[in-house]
């Protein structure tokens, strides 16, 4: 187990380096003047330029730039924006908002997805089954921004059930609709995976054995069947959490949530390259760590894959 963990951690390193370098290169190697438009109409003063150039090694090769950037990063220095704001501050204020939204979205998609999936998996080909199948297709097929817009328009503007945008305090009730929008496609996937898994496992030999043992159906389904069928669902939820924590650029944009997605979008558009890289590094680390946790979770749930 320990060796497995070590091996996975070692695999993370080249991936981390690869992804962060890729982003760094993409963002910083844009031809043109990196200072364009940063300091208003009159352009940036020369000593400012000199300072920034030195700080970010803009005169050196991309490798040196990247290396020194990473060195600073590991010491906790994310650098500053061209406007002078601490990038780490930007991250610290906006990421918690994203996390809140992510957790709400995960909860909603788990409840809806599991509920629909378990019910239809146990009882196939009913009205409920077809309803779930069709609506899940819709949720998967509609792009997030369409769902977001439509819900915002109907629930927020037309019927006034919710506030169209989320306030600064980010109350839980305000996050329900954005959370649903964010998790809509995933809840459809979860419902389908749960449904398929349960339907397949129902015909499994071990279920037959459990019935042959004379166990009450309640236990056969609730303990034996679910424990096995929900393994892929739980790992899917875990993977999704990793993706959710990667920021929901569109949902945050539509509902006005000051999360990390919004920050990175703004930074890209205004060519705040250091901010972009800083945020992406954080997101990549989170994503990689979450993936590792999901793998461990899978091993914890399924004893067959533990002894690799």
């Amino acid at each position, binding site marked *: 187990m320990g060796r497995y963990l070590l091996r996975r951690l070692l695999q993370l390193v080249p991936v981390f380096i690869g992804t962060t370098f890729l982003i760094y290169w993409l963002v910083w190697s844009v031809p043109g003047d990196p200072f364009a438009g940063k300091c208003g109409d009159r352009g940036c003063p020369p000593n400012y330029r000199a300072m920034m150039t030195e700080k970010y090694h803009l005169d050196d090769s991309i490798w040196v730039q990247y290396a020194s950037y990473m060195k600073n990063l590991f010491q906790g220095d994310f650098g500053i924006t061209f406007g002078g704001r601490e990038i780490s501050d930007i991250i610290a204020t906006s990421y918690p908002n994203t996390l809140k939204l992510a957790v709400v979205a995960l909860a909603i998609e788990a409840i809806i997805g599991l509920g629909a999936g378990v019910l239809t998996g146990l009882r196939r080909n009913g009205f409920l089954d077809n309803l779930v199948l069709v609506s899940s297709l819709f949720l998967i097929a509609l792009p997030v921004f369409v769902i977001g817009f439509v819900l915002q328009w109907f629930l927020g503007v037309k019927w006034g059930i919710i506030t169209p945008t989320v306030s600064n305090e980010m109350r839980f009730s305000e996050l329900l609709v954005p959370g649903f929008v964010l998790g809509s496609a995933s809840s459809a996937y979860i419902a389908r995976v749960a449904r398929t898994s349960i339907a397949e496992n129902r015909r499994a*030999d*071990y279920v037959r*054995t459990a*019935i*042959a*043992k*004379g166990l009450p159906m309640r236990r056969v389904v609730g303990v*034996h069947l679910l*424990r096995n069928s929900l393994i892929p669902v739980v790992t899917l939820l875990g993977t999704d959490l990793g993706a959710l924590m990667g920021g929901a650029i569109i949902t945050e944009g539509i509902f006005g949530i000051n999360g990390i997605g919004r920050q990175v979008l703004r930074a890209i558009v205004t060519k705040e390259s250091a901010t972009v890289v800083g945020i992406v590094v954080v997101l990549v680390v989170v994503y990689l760590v979450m993936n590792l946790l999901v793998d461990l979770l899978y091993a914890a749930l399924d*004893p067959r894959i533990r002894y690799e």
Partner: protein
Amino acid sequence: MSEQSAPGTDGSGRPSGRLLEVDDLRVEFRTRDGVAKVINGVTYHVDAGETLAVLGESGSGKSVTAQTIMGILDTPPGFVTGGQVRFHGKDMLKMSAEQRRRIRGEGIAMIFQDSLSALNPVFTVGFQIAEQFRVRRGMSRADAKKRAIEMLDQVKIPNAKGRYSNYPHQFSGGMRQRAMIAMSLALDPEVLIADEPTTALDVTVQAQIMDLLGELQRERRMGMILITHDLGVVADVADRIAVMYAGRIVEEADVYDLYAKPAHPYTLGLLDSIPRMDEKGQELRTIKGLPPNLMNIPPGCAFNPRCPMAQPVCREKVPPLLQLGRGRASACHFAEELVNRD
């Protein structure tokens, strides 16, 4: 009233208080492509302390009969269309689901061919055995664990205490089958149905498992139904043998009688096809043809297309299961000739 005179009943057809009886059972499978008549009037019984072997090829209906007895038949597509399954004289097919459930494990238990897929992969073996004690007998966790370890001991698994916490995939095939046997005997059932228990195992392990089953049966005075297609396995263990073909019993006899003088061409063919040492260098004998399509069973005797002794009457009339005395029966128009030949 069954079309065959079922062995074990008196002339008027009343049950004579056997432990487990299948009486003129009929089961069909209704699928998109048609209806397959899987079981067409099967009657057999088993008493305490005796072993009935049910022999047949794939598709003969032997496993489906067992599943119907246990009540684990896949419905749909399987449907019971006639007959009775009596346990201590009471027809289980007419019982409520709850009554049937209570019989499982306590009255009648079953073990399966593939122990790896039959056991739940995410729970320890010990958990799955102890579960019976906890859920059905209301024991505490600690007591159930103790009893489970005892059961593992009884099936001769070394280091039972340590193995309690192992998962099914951590056992070898033979050990796993023993564990499954332990699980099935936890509640002291009166009848054990063993559906091809050794088919997936090595020959030496096969012998060990069969020995174990025999021993446990004797100790507990259980009735055992052994389902198999392997003539070798049957000889040592069975008291009586019922041979099935195309969903019917075609011959039933005491084990010695069957091997010495089979009374049905199919049984004859099966015995004939066993390779023998003194026939080295000769071509292996087989029964020509294939088992019938159960959606379209040939008229008359289902075996007639493959039977070397088929006569016109075989294609017209379904042979009834004739009683031949001494507990023998055979469903062949020429059964008596076969029995009386030299």
